[in-house]
């Protein structure tokens, strides 16, 4: 019994220690943000590996999610004779929820894990220590460009996901199932509002971008510098990101759309 309590206490202590470290790490990154203005090229390189290379999976996932959503929603809506509202249903679910959340989950799998593995291996092979020895701050040189690239990429990717998803449901709904073309877009424009739905979706994806990139770079920077440790850190990145994104999504949804 006492052993069990001790175990509980130790793991609690461990969690708080990690949280504190992560917060200090975030503050350290915030303080170093100015360095990006001196070396914008570092950011461009990371935007390429974090953002550009994630575009393919985001676009393809968005297209298939939109097509499946169009197909399934049509089957339900047609029973009530309201298949004209396919447009707003798909657009609202994509811009409010599916776009930001699925993009964040895919992003943590595609780019977050790569960030952690890269930084973790740099640490394991002592590249970070070498930088420190050469009086180059590894946080400014390695971590901050990757973090900022993640934060910038996420809203762009989420917007692409939603836009492509709506096109996918348009292809299935209007092209294959025979929903009226005009009704699809006009009902959508009637129901979706810019500030309430689209801007809130972008704010959500921005928040997810900060959280996922933060988790990824912190796990890499804080990894145990062994082969095993880097592998575990990469797994942690994906798992923790998923929990954080889904939990944060509920809180943000309650704050943004809860009053309706």
């Amino acid at each position, binding site marked *: 019994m006492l052993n069990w309590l001790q175990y509980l206490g130790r793991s609690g202590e461990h969690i708080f220690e990690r949280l504190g470290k992560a917060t200090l790490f975030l503050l350290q990154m915030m303080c170093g943000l100015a360095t990006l203005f001196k070396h914008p*090229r570092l950011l461009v*390189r990371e935007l390429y590996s974090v*953002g*550009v290379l994630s575009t393919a999976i985001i676009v393809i996932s968005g297209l298939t999610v939109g097509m499946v959503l169009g197909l399934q929603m049509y089957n339900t809506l047609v029973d009530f004779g309201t298949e004209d509202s396919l447009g707003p249903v798909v657009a609202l679910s994509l*811009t409010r929820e599916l776009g930001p959340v699925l993009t964040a989950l895919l992003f943590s799998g595609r780019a977050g894990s790569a960030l952690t593995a890269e930084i973790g291996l740099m640490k394991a092979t002592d590249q970070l220590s070498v930088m420190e020895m050469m009086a180059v701050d590894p946080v400014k040189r390695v971590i901050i460009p990757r973090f900022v690239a993640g934060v910038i990429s996420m809203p762009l990717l989420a*917007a692409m996901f939603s836009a492509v998803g709506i096109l996918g449901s348009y292809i299935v709904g209007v092209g294959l199932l025979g929903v009226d073309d005009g009704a699809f877009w006009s009902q959508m*424009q009637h129901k979706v509002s810019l500030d309430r739905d689209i801007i809130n979706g972008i704010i959500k994806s921005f928040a997810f971008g900060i959280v996922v990139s933060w988790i990824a770079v912190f796990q890499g920077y804080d990894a145990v510098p062994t082969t095993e440790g880097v592998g575990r850190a990469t797994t942690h990145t994906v798992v923790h990101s998923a929990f954080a994104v889904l939990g944060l999504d509920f809180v943000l949804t309650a704050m943004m759309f809860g009053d309706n």
Partner: protein
Amino acid sequence: MHTSRTIEILVGVFVAAGLAAFFMLAMKVSNISSFAEKDSYVVKASFDNIGGLKTRSPVRIGGVRIGRVTAIEYDDNKLEAIVTMHIYQKHARIPKDSAASIYTAGLLGEQYINLDPGGAEGFLKNGSVIEETQSAFVLERLIGRFLTQASGTGK
């Protein structure tokens, strides 16, 4: 650390594609691209009960959308709801004695204003008030009336 030209171009394309997607969401999906105010004229009508009518609800004649509800206010003196609607300028030939009623699209659909054209010579113009209106059809009231009638005949 050499950054090649290709990478910079690809990053530029990526950012442009993201912004284009956002732009498409804003213009094509949301209601920001609704008609410009200058291409429309304002007509008002007062109703006893507007039911579930909202701003942005459509205004229709014969099922075709010809405008939108832009404001709903409550008049303390007349104890009625004043509905302001913008009608597209190209539909400027609506008889001035047209009647406005609040209909529901389908059984569960949204509510809209339907205009029944009258036979008068003149047309509705900017600032006109539609005199003849019919309130929204409230299901609860109808059921209540039906129930009282049914219990009345049962005795």
